[in-house]
């Protein structure tokens, strides 16, 4: 930084929501600069690896039943067996895929919907904004889980339906954040300057609005991944998941249905619960790191 700009003034501007580069301060520093970042990235990487290769690593067929019902951990079954006599570890390894796929795919749908609604409303203003804003408020206010349950009940349970239902119910927050950012960007002098040059709306959105909104969308989407993973677990636990696939949520459902907690079969309950917790935690921490980077007001160090 050369010249006469005062650091205090710059800070105030950044705090006032001035767009901050995500590419400049390298992504690696944001993610791996702290221990909680390193641990979270490691955990997420580990779970993604399991999601891809879990079915190859599984020692047993996760669907195969045996007479060895609710057996505690042993050499044959390191995490014991289920009420059907299936291998818990194998189910755990295979189940990671559903959590990860649903989490990321639903978050992608949510980000896309939220960005389109937020951009359109914020940029156009007027009656389109009022309608979209009312829609956003509606989706923000209604409790998401009951709505998801109703939607999932109405449609045939499958992985695609699960992704769609979670995506459709979680975009409103993103829409709100994007709209707010677009509203401030729209009034910036560089947008007015571009218009005074004769630039069209498409050009203004592509070169001025979107690049200054993307980091925000990105950080927000990572946080939504965590919400989506939890939602998938909740829906599956309630029996609304894809019945043909094992996920950590369905494992918990089966465990509770078969009375595993009262039978003190901890090996059946704790592993999927712990996996869900750790995955959601790591994704959340990564999301918060991005958010802190974009919004320096949240930073408590320095």
């Amino acid at each position, binding site marked *: 930084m050369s010249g006469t700009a005062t650091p205090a003034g710059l800070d105030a501007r950044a705090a006032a929501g001035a767009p901050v580069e995500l590419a400049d301060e390298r992504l690696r520093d944001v993610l791996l600069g702290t221990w909680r970042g390193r641990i979270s990235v490691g955990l997420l990487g580990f779970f993604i690896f399991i999601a891809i290769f879990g079915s190859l690593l599984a020692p047993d067929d996760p669907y195969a039943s045996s007479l060895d019902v609710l057996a505690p951990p042993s050499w044959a079954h390191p995490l014991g067996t289920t009420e059907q006599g299936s291998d818990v570890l194998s189910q755990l390894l295979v189940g990671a895929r559903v959590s990860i796929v649903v989490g990321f795919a639903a978050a992608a749908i949510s980000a896309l919907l939220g960005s389109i609604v937020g951009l359109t409303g914020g940029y156009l203003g007027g009656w389109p904004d009022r309608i979209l804003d009312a829609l956003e408020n509606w989706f923000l206010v209604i409790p998401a889980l009951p709505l998801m349950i109703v939607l999932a009940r109405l449609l045939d349970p499958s992985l695609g339906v699960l992704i769609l239902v979670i995506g459709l119910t979680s975009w409103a927050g993103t829409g709100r954040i994007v709209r707010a950012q677009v509203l401030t960007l729209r009034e910036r002098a560089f947008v007015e*300057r571009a218009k*005074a*040059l004769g630039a069209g709306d498409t*050009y203004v959105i592509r070169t001025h609005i979107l690049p200054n909104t993307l980091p925000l969308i990105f950080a927000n989407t990572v946080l939504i991944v965590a919400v989506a993973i939890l939602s998938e677990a909740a829906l599956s636990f309630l029996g609304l998941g894809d019945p043909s696939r094992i996920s950590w949520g369905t494992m918990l459902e089966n465990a509770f249905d078969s009375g595993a907690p009262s039978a003190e079969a901890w090996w059946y309950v704790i592993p999927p619960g712990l996996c869900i917790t750790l995955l959601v935690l790591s994704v959340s921490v990564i999301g918060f790191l991005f958010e802190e980077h974009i919004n320096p007001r949240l930073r408590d160090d320095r």
Partner: protein
Amino acid sequence: MATAEPNGSLIEVRDLAIEFSARGQLARAVDGVSLDWRRGEILGVVGESGCGKSTLARAMLALVEPAAGSVSLRGQVVSGEGAGGRKGVSDLRRRVQMIFQDPYQTLNPRQRVEAIVTEPLRVQGVPEGKHDERVRRALDDVGLDPERYLGRYPHQLSGGQRQRVAIAAALVLEPEGLICDEPVSMLDASVRAQILSVLLELQKRRVLALVFITHDLSLAWSLCDRIAVMYLGRIVEQGSAVDVIERPKHPYTKALVNAVPVPEAGGGGRRELLGGELPDPTAIPPGCRFHPRCPRRFEPCDSVDPSLMPAGGRDQLAACLLHDPAQSSAAKAAADA
């Protein structure tokens, strides 16, 4: 500051009115303004904040739609009543550019200087082969070394450097007119002088017409050929910079001039300072809109709305009943006082 065609107008504003709706009420930010901006001329528009000077600037660039009146570029109406379609507007976009007040807001933080200065050429469809050369020349013109600055982002620049980049981006299309909305009010005094000298230098070299929007009377006086004083959406006085500042004819201009601190022994005689605030533009006073604050108001001021009329110097106009020959001799007496 004589130019080749001293009488040709670049932009003519006629009876312009701009309305905004604020909390359900209609506010006239600009209310019946007529103004000529001549080629090669530096025109100052001065007034308190909220008087409508920035809105006037935006209207001159056809960025806001007039409620009444028109804006023409070289005799062709481009905005408002009788506007002649897209051709006129695209002409305006090429020939007249704008510089804004806040150098922190003018530049997109995610574009490098090169992209910022190239943008006008891209938007206006200038062949790509010419971009590099023209961008470099524009940066040279504002005193920034292209080699050092092309690759920088706005946050790597100081306030003065940002404003130079904004000026370069405005100049790269080689416009005939440049509208500067408080271009130096957010800069340090030393940087301010540099930016002003860059602008003046360019004005002379390129025969550029400038509109200077400012609340700083001494700046307008030292810089401008002509000055228009705005109050509550209307021009209350206009004329040559020397006439308007040194021999103001409208009580409002007098009050503004009096409010400028003068380093003079003994305080420089009597000073008339204004009381009160700028009225709400949704509730414009009847008669002369300045009369509630006017130290010289007399009987008809609260009922008769004065238009601009000749007052004193050559081409000097003031919207004040004191200069209306039709008014009583009491007015004359007050004017002479």
